[in-house]
């Protein structure tokens, strides 16, 4: 118990001291997860919006697949990306394995289904609501979609934040494709796993505290966005 309290004290001291290693790990974590969120939004929003408004054979199956992939296990994603990027894999020549780029790819694959599935539901609901008005105006599809995406922006930003939360907190995929290499691919979650196994609970806890703080900030942002949208009757 005393060790535990000591670990907490050390953790706070480390956070407050602005330790360079700690900042580097936090910086890389944010860089990888924000990049993954950006690419996932580009792909996921486009996919989600398309499935929301398009009617084609197998659409229900696509929705089921989106929803199923929301629970994709990170280690499975890590393994698949590892196989694809390893020297014998189809993209081995790119030399991306054990680089931040590989971690971004893995996290992008992990959270794209989340963004696609959630945005599909949001866009579909709003599109159905606006549909008759848009058709009455004989509005072209691109213009209708633009209006729907704009009006759903608060909800969609919340979806993006949910994706970021999932990305920044996962450990399995980035551990496999990044390798947890010091000063190169070490992020908060992989560092926590390593330091815990080494018995350096102070650094592990410090990282855990930062991770929790980031997670809380993201959730608070999402909540305040929703509240703000509801207050303005935009939600």
């Amino acid at each position, binding site marked *: 118990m005393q060790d535990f309290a000591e670990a907490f004290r050390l953790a706070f001291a480390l956070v407050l001291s602005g330790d360079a290693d700690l900042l580097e790990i936090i910086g890389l974590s944010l860089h990888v997860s924000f990049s993954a969120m950006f690419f996932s939004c580009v792909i996921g929003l486009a996919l989600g919006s398309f499935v929301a408004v398009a009617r084609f054979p197998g659409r229900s199956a696509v929705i089921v697949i989106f929803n199923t992939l929301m629970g994709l296990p990170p280690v499975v994603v890590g393994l698949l990306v590892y196989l694809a990027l390893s020297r014998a894999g189809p993209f081995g020549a790119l030399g991306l394995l054990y680089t931040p780029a590989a971690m971004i790819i893995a996290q992008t694959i992990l959270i794209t289904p989340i963004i696609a599935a959630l945005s599909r539901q949001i866009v579909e609901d709003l599109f159905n609501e*606006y549909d008759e008005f848009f058709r009455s*105006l004989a*509005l*072209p599809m691109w213009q209708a979609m633009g209006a729907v995406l704009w009006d759903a922006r608060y909800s969609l930003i919340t979806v993006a934040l949910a994706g970021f939360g999932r990305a920044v907190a996962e450990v399995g995929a980035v551990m496999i494709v990044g390798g947890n290499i010091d000063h190169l691919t070490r992020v908060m979650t992989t560092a926590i796993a390593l330091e815990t196994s080494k018995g350096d609970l102070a650094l592990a806890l410090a990282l855990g505290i930062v991770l929790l703080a980031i997670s809380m900030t993201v959730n608070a942002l999402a909540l305040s966005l929703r509240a703000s949208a509801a207050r303005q009757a*935009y939600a």
Partner: protein
Amino acid sequence: MRDMTLSMAKDNPLAATASAPNTVGGHASDTAPAQDLTGTLFPLKVKSLVFEAGGRRLIDGLDLTLQRTGTTMIMGPNGAGKSLLLRLIHGLLQPMAGMIEWGGQPPSDTLRRFQALVTQKPVLLRRSVAENIDFVLRTLGRTNADERDALLGQVGLLELRDQPARKLSGGEQQRLSLARALAINPSVLMLDEPTASLDPASVLVIEQLVNRAASRGVKVIFITHDLGQTRRLGGDVIFMHRGRVAEHTSVENFFEAPKSQAVRDFVAGRIVL
């Protein structure tokens, strides 16, 4: 084929509009009603119209001819097919059988741009009052704050222009919906029970706006359950019953000399099923 298109365009301005090339991203000039086409849209002819849903025939061989002049009121019990008819002639729904022709042309995107629809439950964008009008003006290639403010002034919402549209009261939302419809400068204004569940003051404002539009030459097609409203606004009345037109007559004849039993019962206040 080219000759045929040109010939159509010469005879009918709508054909010319339909074949006009897109410009400015293929939209602005394509969507803007450039002239008063009310005359070329009429007569509206509906023949043997059939619409089914869920295995039920909701519009059952309906025939109808509407002329350009006057405000046409559509009445009838719930489930008679009034709202369906409006959406069919507006081109929002496709009939299973039958024919609809506006001045000889079937409903189309081009024709729809000269028509405006106001529904019982207004669909307002998640934006401010002003932005709801701006959206329509922008789609027509007319971004004009003065025009928007004038429209909001007409419906008494100018002071609320920065408020979120969805926070307005029911009457205010309906007035905004009507202002948005008028922003189109429609040749035909279709209203589906726009005053249902509104207080008398809001009803009065809506009726004044509708009358003003009608006096400018806009053809108004107005669905209502309110006999008083029909007396106040109507030029002619269509009474629908079980997916058909039971009677189409002048408002005077509708109240004083109805021909069908359904209308006699309805006017007398008896329940029509």
